[in-house]
């Protein structure tokens, strides 16, 4: 159900943009209004959601300790997987965010007769995720050439590296290949691994298909149908400088591409894509395991009924005296 629904949703979006431009002349809407609205929704939505998270305190210090604690000086502690200092936490978070360290631990269950259980090597998910996110980042940064004038050196530099092999003209970007390969892998694993398919919701297929289609339309424009990039940059620079223009002669495919990107940004704050800012706030990762050293304060800590020693002794006094246990009141 999720697959079909998501497919239909993405196809509908493509058709809406295509028809809107082709038959109704809604270039202004798909090229200017939608991107602006999407950006507004993206920024307010993401900030609102992060502030919502920030509204809830972290009452307890609950890092997942994945290494030796700091205890006796002659026992080597694992400062990254079980940090006790701020620097350690920064290191742990950096590894988590930049290299997906936890996902790197992934294994695959092999259940065999006997029973004999094995945990097999499984780094494909990690690899595909890393590839997906980094190629997406490269594509994102490369697109800055449409949004900056003059174009900063790092965008040019990245482009040079990305087209290193100089295959064809326009040169093939390695990130395009990696991106499509990774998205395809992530999609295929979602439908062929039975457990992963079982847990997948429309909200899992939709972003993958949307992102795939964004990539595909971009790639088609660059390598197949060709577009007038000068006019496109006039449009994009118009957006950036708040002097929007719709130059003549831009094909429908471009508006489809831009509209899907707009949908992605608008959808971001209301979806699982919020894992991007969320990972920074994860209490099991971003805190040092030092709660035996420094007191962590819970802002809503409230007094609770307890069974006091006095009540306990009142209850058992005779028995305690008889057993020779010391008591407060004879």
């Amino acid at each position, binding site marked *: 159900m999720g697959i079909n629904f998501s497919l239909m949703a993405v196809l509908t979006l493509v058709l809406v943009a295509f028809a809107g431009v082709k038959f109704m002349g809604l270039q202004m809407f798909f090229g200017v209004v939608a991107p602006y609205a999407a950006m507004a929704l993206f920024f307010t939505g993401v900030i609102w959601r992060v*502030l919502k998270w920030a509204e809830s305190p972290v009452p307890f210090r609950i890092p997942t300790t994945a290494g030796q604690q700091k205890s006796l000086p002659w026992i080597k502690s694992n400062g990254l997987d079980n940090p006790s200092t701020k620097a350690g936490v920064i290191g742990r978070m950096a590894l988590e965010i930049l290299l997906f360290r936890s996902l790197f631990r992934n294994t695959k269950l092999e259940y065999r007769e006997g029973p004999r259980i094995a945990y097999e090597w499984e780094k494909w998910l990690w690899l595909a995720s890393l590839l997906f996110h980094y190629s997406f980042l490269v594509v994102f940064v490369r697109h800055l050439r449409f949004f*900056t*004038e003059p*174009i900063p050196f790092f965008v*040019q530099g990245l482009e040079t590296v990305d087209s290193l092999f100089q295959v064809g003209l326009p040169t093939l970007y390695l990130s395009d290949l990696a991106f499509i390969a990774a998205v395809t892998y992530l999609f295929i694993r979602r439908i062929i691994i039975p457990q992963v398919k079982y847990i997948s919701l429309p909200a899992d297929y939709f972003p993958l298909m949307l992102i795939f289609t964004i990539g595909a339309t971009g790639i088609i424009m660059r390598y197949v149908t060709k577009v007038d990039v000068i006019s496109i940059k006039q449009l994009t620079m118009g957006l950036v*400088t708040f002097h929007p223009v719709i130059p003549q002669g831009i094909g429908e495919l471009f508006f489809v591409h831009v509209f899907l990107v707009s949908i992605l940004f608008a959808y971001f704050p209301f979806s699982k894509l919020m894992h991007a800012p969320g990972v920074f706030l994860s209490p099991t990762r971003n805190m040092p395991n030092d709660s035996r050293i420094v007191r962590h304060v819970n802002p809503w800590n409230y007094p609770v009924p307890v069974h006091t020693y006095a009540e306990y002794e009142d209850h058992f006094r005779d028995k305690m005296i008889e057993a020779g246990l010391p008591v407060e009141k004879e």
Partner: protein
Amino acid sequence: MKIYNGDKIIPGILIGVIILTFPLWLARGKAAATPDIKFDTPVIQKLAVKQCVLPKETMRTSHMVVLNDWRDAAVRNNTRVFTGMDGKKYDINLQNTCMECHSNKTHFCDQCHNYLGVNPYCWKCHIEPKETK
């Protein structure tokens, strides 16, 4: 709205927003200049029919493909003749055919390439035409 760990979260949000809106800061609302391609070289002015090897629109979007094909034809297949849209035959030659008309590399090639951050490697092998100002 009470915020916890605002000392880290608020700067975090600000850094994120600033990075993501980087193009806006760079542009600061000033309208950007667009390239102004010039076709007024002496050779073009002398032409009776001002027509390139393929239609203008095709050349605008796909000249790199044409050039790539020309290179392959000349260097790899030793084919030196290209039949244009109107049946006219052209010598496959960047310096003598293309640059003959478009002798104004700075105004014709570089403007757009710079505007879009494209670094074609034509001139790594070919000699750049000398422009007379």
